[in-house]
Structure formats: structure tokens, C-alpha cells
């Protein structure tokens, strides 16, 4: 018979090993030696307890971990993260039988990590059923049957975008006042946007062209997030990773809350000294985000690195990375693009060619040109929803980007060259007209225009 002290000691050890194993699988690839070592430790801890109990039941009750009816208060205090993760999966108890082998533990931990990477919310709870294996049984909170989500329509997306900009302003304020942006508000907003990016990416991305110029700071946050998620989604990324990347992009400039407003909003060119202060925002952003609980690890990394370029240029000075990670690169592209195409009080929007030239700067060594190409293909030089002037003087709305030639989208002509609105708008495929070498037809976009000046809502055409 095992004495109480020994049992408590073994149980405590088991919980710590369990926590370390699942934390390891969350942080490292399943083949990483650290993961293997932790799992071996877990197997050893289980063996020690299994010598006395045929089955070990780990329960989660009101924020406490219970091992075979013994509350592990001390362990619970340091295993808050583990309890939170169990909670996220709806796990109430885990029963591990004596016959469990290291391989089965490895599979369990691997699957645990995979499910967390792929799912979230109720989907994660539902997916937790997959954790069951012959000698490891997971008791879960059962879920009601989920009603399939409806596809988001244009008005929903428009409302969503507007809410996102509002939330961005709240995040900005909370970061400015408390140095801690409201992580849960940010998460909820990103969940919403990520879902829209998955279901109706183009329409959402088109919305980024419709910014309210008075709210540049907040619309820029939201736009960069959408444009970054759009690119990530195009690479097949989905689930929690997509949301992490989106959140990171949303927060990429949060360090600017510490930049003096006279510098942040200065209409003229910054002096060298002012520019030095401005550049601090990457460090400030990383510090703010790294010090905010519940913000995923990628966010401070992207905030810190988003002005670094793959050829080693950029800032913060003295910081080098042998390779930039994908989230940083995607966010960097979206950031430059959105900043340049935005019209602000003191800055006219740059023509798309100019933006592309910046993205191809230094012989294309600053940005990964494969990603730039994908971005241009995805968005077009003139993205869907853009109001543009054609070479004929007509004003049209971009309807569809032709991936093979992003310079020549399909447009719907709304205003004639003399400025009169057409009763019956007509569509033109610019890539077709240029192929037919028609001089009398519009074949090129000359410049983007502000839809507000024409009193139209581009979204209603998409």
C-alpha cells in the first residue's frame, strides 16, 4: 500500500511531466528531442504510479488538477496553462491505463498538439474525441450539434469590417493607456475576420480599399491583418495559425502608441532624429506584446521584425535574421502596400506601379519576390472594389482581377469620360481589349480614385 506522502509526490511529479510533455508538443515539432525526453519522463512517472494503481485518473475540477482523487493544489498553481488547455478542449478527465506504452503516449501528445493547431472553439472540443486511444480515455464535455455556419454576405462583411476598425481603436487605446492591448477583444475580432477570409476572401480584401481616410491608424491595422491573412490563406494556411498570423499583423504597429503624436502625424518629412524615434516603434511594439498575456508568440516577433528585409536592410539596426519567417514577410508586404495606397491628410495615395516598384526595390532583394508575385496575383494592381480612372477618362469599378495579368482587371464602367453617370453600366475585360489591340477602347487603368468623391459604394458592385 502506497503511503499518502509518496503518492502525493508521485502524483505531483506526474502532473509536471504531463504538463511539460504537452507544453513541449505545443512548442516544438513532435520529432524534437525535447519532446521525446519529456514523454519519456512522463512514461516513467506513469510507471511509478501504475505500480500502485491499474488506472490513473487525472481530473480537472474547478481549476484544480486531481490525480486519483488527490487534489494537486501545488501543481495546479504552476500548471494553469495546462488546465486552460484542457478546458479549451472540454476535457474533464483523462484515464490512463497501466498498459499504456510510450508510443501511445507519443501519439496522444502528438494528436493533442495537432488538434490545437488545427481547431479552436467548439470545433476543438468536438475534435478532442480523436484523443481517445486504447489505453488513454478522455472524458469530455459533450457539445450540442453545431449548426453549419452561413456564408457571409456583403452586408455582413461590411459590418464586420466596420466593427473591426472600432475594435482596433479600442486596442490602440488600451495599449496606449495600459501598455496592454485587450487580447481577448483582438482574438474575437480576428476569429471573425479569419472566418470571413476563409469564406469570402476577395470581398473582404476588396473592403480594405474602402477605408475611411480619417481613421488611417485603425483601418491600416485592420487592412494589414486582412491582407496578410489573405496571403496566408492563399498558401493553404488555416485554423489557429491563420488567426495567429492575422493577430500578429493586426498588432504590427502597436508600438506606435509610444511614438509622440507630433512625430506620428507630422505631415512633413521626418528629421533624422525624429526618424530614429519613429523607428523605436518596432521595439516598443515587441515589448508591449511580449508583456501582454494571451497574445500569441508570433505577434511580438512580427511587430519587432516587420521592417526587417530579407537582404538584411531595415531596422531595428543591429538585428539580423538568417531568414525571415513567413508571417513577417507577408505582413511586411501588406504593410508597405496598404501604407502607400492609402490617402491621408498629408499624403496622396501612390500609384500602384510605384507601390510595386517599392516591393521590387533593390532588384527584388528586400522582399521575397515569389511572395510579392503571389500578392500581386491575389490582389491585382487594382484590387477588386477599387474605383479607377481608365485611359479613356471613364471611371470604373474593378470587378475581378485576372491573375495572369494583374494590371488589367475586369471593370464595370460607371461614369463616361465627361463625368456623366451611365444609366446602363457596362463591363470591360481590359486584358481582352489590350490583346485585341483596340485603340478606341479602354485598356489601362490610369489611377485609383476615392469612391466617396463619386458618391458610390463600390461594395454594392461586388
Amino acid at each position: 500500500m502506497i503511503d499518502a506522502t509518496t503518492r502525493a509526490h508521485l502524483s505531483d511529479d506526474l502532473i509536471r511531466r504531463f504538463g511539460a510533455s504537452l507544453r513541449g508538443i505545443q512548442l516544438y515539432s513532435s520529432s524534437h528531442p525535447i519532446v521525446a525526453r519529456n514523454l519519456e519522463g512522463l512514461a516513467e512517472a506513469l510507471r511509478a504510479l501504475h505500480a500502485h494503481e491499474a488506472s490513473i485518473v487525472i481530473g480537472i475540477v474547478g481549476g484544480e488538477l486531481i490525480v486519483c482523487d488527490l487534489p494537486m493544489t501545488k501543481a495546479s498553481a504552476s500548471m494553469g496553462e495546462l488546465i486552460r488547455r484542457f478546458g479549451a478542449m472540454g476535457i474533464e478527465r483523462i484515464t490512463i491505463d497501466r498498459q499504456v506504452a510510450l508510443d501511445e503516449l507519443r501519439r496522444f501528445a502528438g494528436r493533442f498538439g495537432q488538434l490545437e493547431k488545427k481547431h479552436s472553439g467548439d470545433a476543438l472540443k468536438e475534435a478532442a474525441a480523436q484523443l481517445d486511444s486504447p489505453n488513454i480515455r478522455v472524458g469530455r464535455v459533450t457539445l450540442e450539434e453545431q449548426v453549419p455556419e452561413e456564408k457571409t454576405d456583403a452586408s455582413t462583411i461590411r459590418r464586420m469590417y466596420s466593427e473591426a476598425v472600432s475594435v482596433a481603436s479600442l486596442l490602440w487605446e488600451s495599449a496606449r493607456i495600459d501598455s496592454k492591448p485587450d487580447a481577448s477583444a483582438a482574438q474575437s475580432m480576428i476569429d471573425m475576420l479569419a472566418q470571413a477570409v476563409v469564406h469570402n476572401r476577395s470581398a473582404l480584401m476588396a473592403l480594405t480599399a474602402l477605408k475611411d481616410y480619417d481613421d488611417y491608424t485603425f483601418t491600416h491595422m485592420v487592412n494589414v491583418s486582412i491582407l496578410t491573412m489573405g496571403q496566408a490563406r492563399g498558401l493553404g494556411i488555416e485554423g489557429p495559425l491563420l488567426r495567429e498570423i492575422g493577430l500578429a499583423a493586426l498588432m504590427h504597429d502597436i508600438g506606435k502608441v509610444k511614438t509622440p503624436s507630433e512625430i506620428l502625424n507630422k505631415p512633413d518629412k521626418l528629421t533624422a532624429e525624429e526618424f530614429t524615434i519613429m523607428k523605436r516603434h518596432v521595439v516598443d511594439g515587441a515589448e508591449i506584446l511580449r508583456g501582454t498575456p494571451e497574445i500569441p508568440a508570433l505577434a511580438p516577433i512580427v511587430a519587432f521584425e516587420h521592417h526587417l528585409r530579407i537582404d538584411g536592410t531595415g531596422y531595428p539596426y543591429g538585428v539580423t535574421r538568417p531568414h525571415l519567417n513567413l508571417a513577417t514577410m507577408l505582413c511586411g508586404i501588406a504593410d508597405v502596400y496598404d501604407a502607400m495606397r492609402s490617402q491621408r491628410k498629408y499624403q496622396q495615395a501612390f500609384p500602384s506601379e510605384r507601390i510595386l516598384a517599392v516591393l521590387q526595390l533593390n532588384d527584388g532583394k528586400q522582399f521575397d519576390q515569389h511572395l510579392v508575385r503571389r500578392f500581386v496575383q491575389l490582389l491585382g494592381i487594382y484590387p477588386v472594389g477599387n474605383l479607377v480612372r481608365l485611359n479613356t477618362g471613364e471611371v470604373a469599378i474593378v470587378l475581378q482581377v485576372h491573375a495572369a495579368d494583374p494590371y488589367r482587371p475586369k471593370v464595370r464602367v460607371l461614369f463616361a469620360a465627361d463625368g456623366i453617370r451611365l444609366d446602363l453600366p457596362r463591363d470591360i475585360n481590359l486584358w481582352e481589349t489590350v490583346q485585341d489591340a483596340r485603340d478606341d477602347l479602354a485598356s489601362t487603368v490610369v489611377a485609383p480614385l476615392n469612391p466617396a468623391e463619386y458618391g458610390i459604394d463600390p461594395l454594392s458592385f461586388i
Partner: protein
Amino acid sequence: MSTQEKDLPLLDQDSTARLTDFARACKVAARAVSLYPPTHPAIRLSLVRLVDAVARITAKGTVTLGVVPDNLLMGGAAPLRPDQAVRETAALLHDHMIGLLTLHSSPDPDGWLPFLNILAKSFDEVRASGGVGRLWSATGQRHLELQEIDYADILREREGIAAQWDDIIRACLNLDSPLDDKSLRALVEVCGNAERFTEFVLALEQSGETSMGSKASALLRMLRGVVDLVSRTDPARMESVLRNVAEGFGTLSPDLLLELLATDQGRADKAADLVLQVASRMTDETLAGFVAKDVIAQGGAVTRLTHAFQALVPEPDRRHGVLEMARAQVAESPLGETAGFVDFWKDTANKLTSYSDERYVSESYARNLSGVRTQALEVERVTDDPPERIGGWVTSVGATEVRALELRLLLDLLTIESDAERWQGVTFPVVSHIEDLLLVGDFDGAIQLTTILNSEASGEGDRKPAAVAALARLAEGVMMTHVVTHLRSVDEESAEQLRKFCHMVGSSIVGGLAEALAGEKRAIARQRFTQILLGFGAAGKTAVERLRASANPAVRRTAIYLLREFGGSDALPDLTTLLDDTEPHVQREAVRAILAIGTEEAYAELQRALATGTNQTREVLTTALVAMRNERAIPLFEYIVRKIDRKGPLRSVYLRAVESLGALKAEGSVGLLEDALYSGEWWSPFRTAELRRAVATALSRIGTPEAERVLQEAAKSGPRGVRAAIRAVQS
């Protein structure tokens, strides 16, 4: 749920979950096999998952899955809920012409590789290799049975029922496989009924994933086959068949119709003639319907419609009549109710009749909408990034890489943050991160961060206070728990890293280590804790001083243990004070420690404690001494015999020391015992006799020749009292 399965029975929750699980696993595994090189760990992982899923789905025996284009059926029942993975897996299997899939049991993961390799091939490759059935048979695997889709069978089965157009179309699209007579007869039946042919055409138009050219080829091939068969078997029926087909042509989109006409161009065979023959049988009503349908759908005349209209109705006079009929149909639609319809129609008719490669080249609004929604997919389709490149990008935000970047970020922040106050702010996440790294056993990372804190704490810069505070927070947090857990089990290399880490954190962890050491049972762990503590040198001893003064007896015992481990006479004063401890356990530990020192000075301290202590202390110390009957204690027992006043209250201690020397067979103590044997006081005969008996007993237990010699000599020529003692022992 697809429309086809509307009336099917539904699986229960559990079966749905198992089927979905299998579908997901199958999809992931197929994707992994197609994307990664054979040795990639992702493949192994996905195979294991697939095997698990198959084990679950076949838990009650063999399972046969029916494959329809967008769903998997189990026992003829459809899943309870639609699921993307089920849809995609069904599409994948269906695309490979798999109609039924029977799972027998769960083999080892490698058994699934041949099947997944087949799925990784394109349909063309599979077909070129003789079809999926043949490829699978060649693998020799038995855990899986597949039944290939036979469209002739399908047509036969579905004769008289609403046909599954997508299957028929697929059969038509399969240009390498001739349509057999039975299939053709079924198609003739379709063409014999205008309504059914129209349905077929609509289905063909709506079938995704196929280019317009392929659709046109499929339609043409079908028509050729039907016409050939009818001309051979029932020529009288030819005209009605062609008219039905012509009527169906009216429901085609301008795109498909133009594609048919383009296919026709440049060909001199019967096929070219066939399209024209059909087109020539399109009535004005059909043509008007064709135009009206498209104008209503597109909100006007688009280029493709104009091209098609002009090709189908080359005669200007006839165009006017057809357009009039079309106008009447459009006028009855909502478009006809809009203001300016008259002008609109005028413009439309003008375009349709006078267009010649001019202004308006556009698609429909509806298609715009769908185009926008599918735009991203198109982008993915045109990209030429190889899977390896995409894999590399995605890997760069994988868990391990992000972990490394997180560490790099903190190291950078600690290095480049120049403001002392903000630097202090950075130390908070740094400390948390170190704790996290220790939890999972990433000692390298923990050491890198701690090195910077240690360096700043050792310096004199303005970061020093923050660094010192950070290290103190680290020492007070959960770090020590993690260190202790690891020290119990890690290999020597990792233990060395932990030792290095602990020393960088600083002496504030000595207390925690000492606590852990006190409760540790495993020798290897005790040794590691001790090594770390010893590495702290003077700082370690300072910590021991604190422990020694603790109100907790267990902690005081730990202090003694450490004093023992530190060793040397320097520890003696501390140990000496603990000999007077109120707790017997502590006193016993102190005795052990003093014994470990083993010097005369140490024994003198023990004697002092024995001489000056209370009765309880004396009893405890004596008991402790006797309990430690090992050779290391012999000098102390000798010391007691030599130095202790055996007449006073320590007589019992003396007796136990003598007894212990005997029990330990202390050969070197024979001379001392011989002296003791002859010692005695005449005025205290009983006490002297008791002591001599004890000494004689001890010598007898030692039993060496020298001890025997002493006893014999004493028995023979010793004083009376000595002889009596010897006799008493020998008897």
C-alpha cells in the same frame, strides 16, 4: 448534404464521427504522400493517424463505403452532417473512379502507402496504367478492396430513373475509353427526349473543374456516338434525335456554343458537319429563347452572345424576326419592367446585329460575382510555386521555429533596449520565458537568457538593479521546481547545463536547492544537488547558516546535511550548536555530521556535548552513536573510552562505547580495551566489575589472537577482579 443523398437514411452520431475521422485521416494522408518526399515525417504521422481511424471504423468488422461525387456512404447511409473532409475525400476517390471501398482491418501504416500513392497520381496517369482497380490488384494488398466505377453499369442501373448526369458526363469526358453500345443506347434515349437532353446539357454546363473545351469535346463525342448508333440501328429516328438535340442547343451558354462551333472549325470530318446540322435545326423559337435567356441573365448582350447569335443566324432578315421573339420574352421578365427598357432593347438588338469586334467585351454580372468569390482559387491555380517552397514558408512559422524566434526576440530586446526602465519591463517576460523553457527542458535557451541577466547583475551599469531583481524573481518562482524535477532524471550533459544555469541565477537559489536536497531520496539527484550547492562555495555556507536557524526542524536537518557535504572543520562550530538542538532528529544528524568530520576536535565537541548536555541530549547522542555502528565511528568510541569519566553520569555512554567497539570488532582498539580492563576503583567494586565485564565481553567479540592473548593473560595473572570478569564472560 448533396442533393443526391436527400432521401438517404442518415448515420448515427457515432458512425458519422468514425466516418468523418476516416475521411479526414485519408485526406491528410493522401495530401502528405503527394506533397512530401517519402521519408518526410509528416507521411509517417499521417499514416499512423489513418491506421487509427481505420481501426475505429472497422472496430465492429468490415466496412464498405459507397463513394458518390461529393459524399461517402456507410451501409448506404449518409453522414449526419456535411463535412468538408468527407466531401473532399469522396471527390478524391470518385475522381479516381473508385465507387466502393471496403475496409477489412487496420494494417500497419506501410500497408496504406500503395493505396495513397495511387491516389497521388493524376486521373490520367491512373487511367493510362489500366485504371485504379488494376493498379490496386498489382500491389497485392488485401486489407482494402476497391470497386471501380463502371459507367455502363450505372447507365443500365439508372435507366428509367433520373440519370446522374455528372457520371455520364465523366464517361463522355473520358476520351480514351470508347463508349460501349449499352451506354450509347442509354444516351440515345436521352437524346430522344428533348427535356432529358436539356437536363443533360444543363448538367454538362454546370459541371465544375472542366474547361469549356473539354465540355464541348464531351458533348461532341456523345453526339457522334449517338448519331452513329442511330444511323446504324434506327435511321428513321435520326431526324427527331437531331431536332431534340437542336432544342437542347438553345439552352447552352454562348460560351459552350461558341466552343462547339470553334471545335467544328477547321475540321473536315463528320463531326464538323454534325454541329452545323444540329445548328441548322435550331428553330426561331429556340434561337429566341437562347438570346432572351442570356440577355436576362447578363443584363444585356455580351460579346460571346453576339458572336454566337451571329454565327447561328447569319441571315440578317431572320435575325430581326428572332430578336423580336426574344424581345417579347425579355419584356416579360423583370428586366422588361425597368424604366428605359425600350432604349435598352434597342441598344441590345443593335449590338447583336451590328457587332464586329467592337466596344463591349464583358461577362455577366452573375459571373462577376462568382468570379470574385473564386478569384483566390484562380490565383492559387496559376501560381508556379513548388510544394517545397510553400512548405518552407509554412515551416518558418512552425512551432519549433517560432519558439526559436521568440527566444531570439527576447535576446535582442535584452541587448538593444537602452532605456533602463523599459529594460526592466523586458525582464518580466524574460523570466516567464526562462521558466517555460525550463519546464520543457530547453536548457540552452534558459542559459542564454540567464547569461544576459547574470552579466548585467554582475556589472555596474544602470541595468544592474533590474537584473538583480529579475534573478531574484526567477529564484522565487517555479523555476526551482522545474530544475529539481529535471535533475532527478536528465542525463549528465543536461545536468551539467542545469548546474551552469543555477550558478548563473545566483546564490538565492541555494535555499531552494537545499530544501530539495533534504527531501530527495535518489542518490544521483542528491549528488547533483550537492554538486550545485558546493559550487556556490561561501555563498552556499551562508545559506546554510540561514537554514540552521530555521524554526523548521526539517530545514535544520538540511543545514546539517549541507554542513556535512561541505565538510571540513569549518563546519564544526555550526554542527556543535546543533548537538544541543531540541529536536532529537536534528541532534542525530549533527552527530552523524561530526562523525563524518572525524577529527579529534570533532570528537571533543561530541564529548563536550555528552558531558554538558541534559539527560535527554545525552541519551539521544548515545543512541545515535550506538546506532551508527560502523567503522567510521570506532575512533569516537575509542575517544569516549579513553576520555570519558566512567564514574559519572556518562557511565552508560562509556559502556555503550565499549560494547560498540566489540560489536565492530575493532581490532585496533584491543590495547585501549586492555588498559580499560585493568582500570578500576577499589572503593566501587560493583561498578568496576560491571565495566570490566563489558570490556572482557568486547575483547571476546573482537576475537583476534591479540584479543585472546589479552584475555588469557588477564585470566591467568590479572588481579582478582579482572579474573572474575574474564570468568564471567567465558562462562
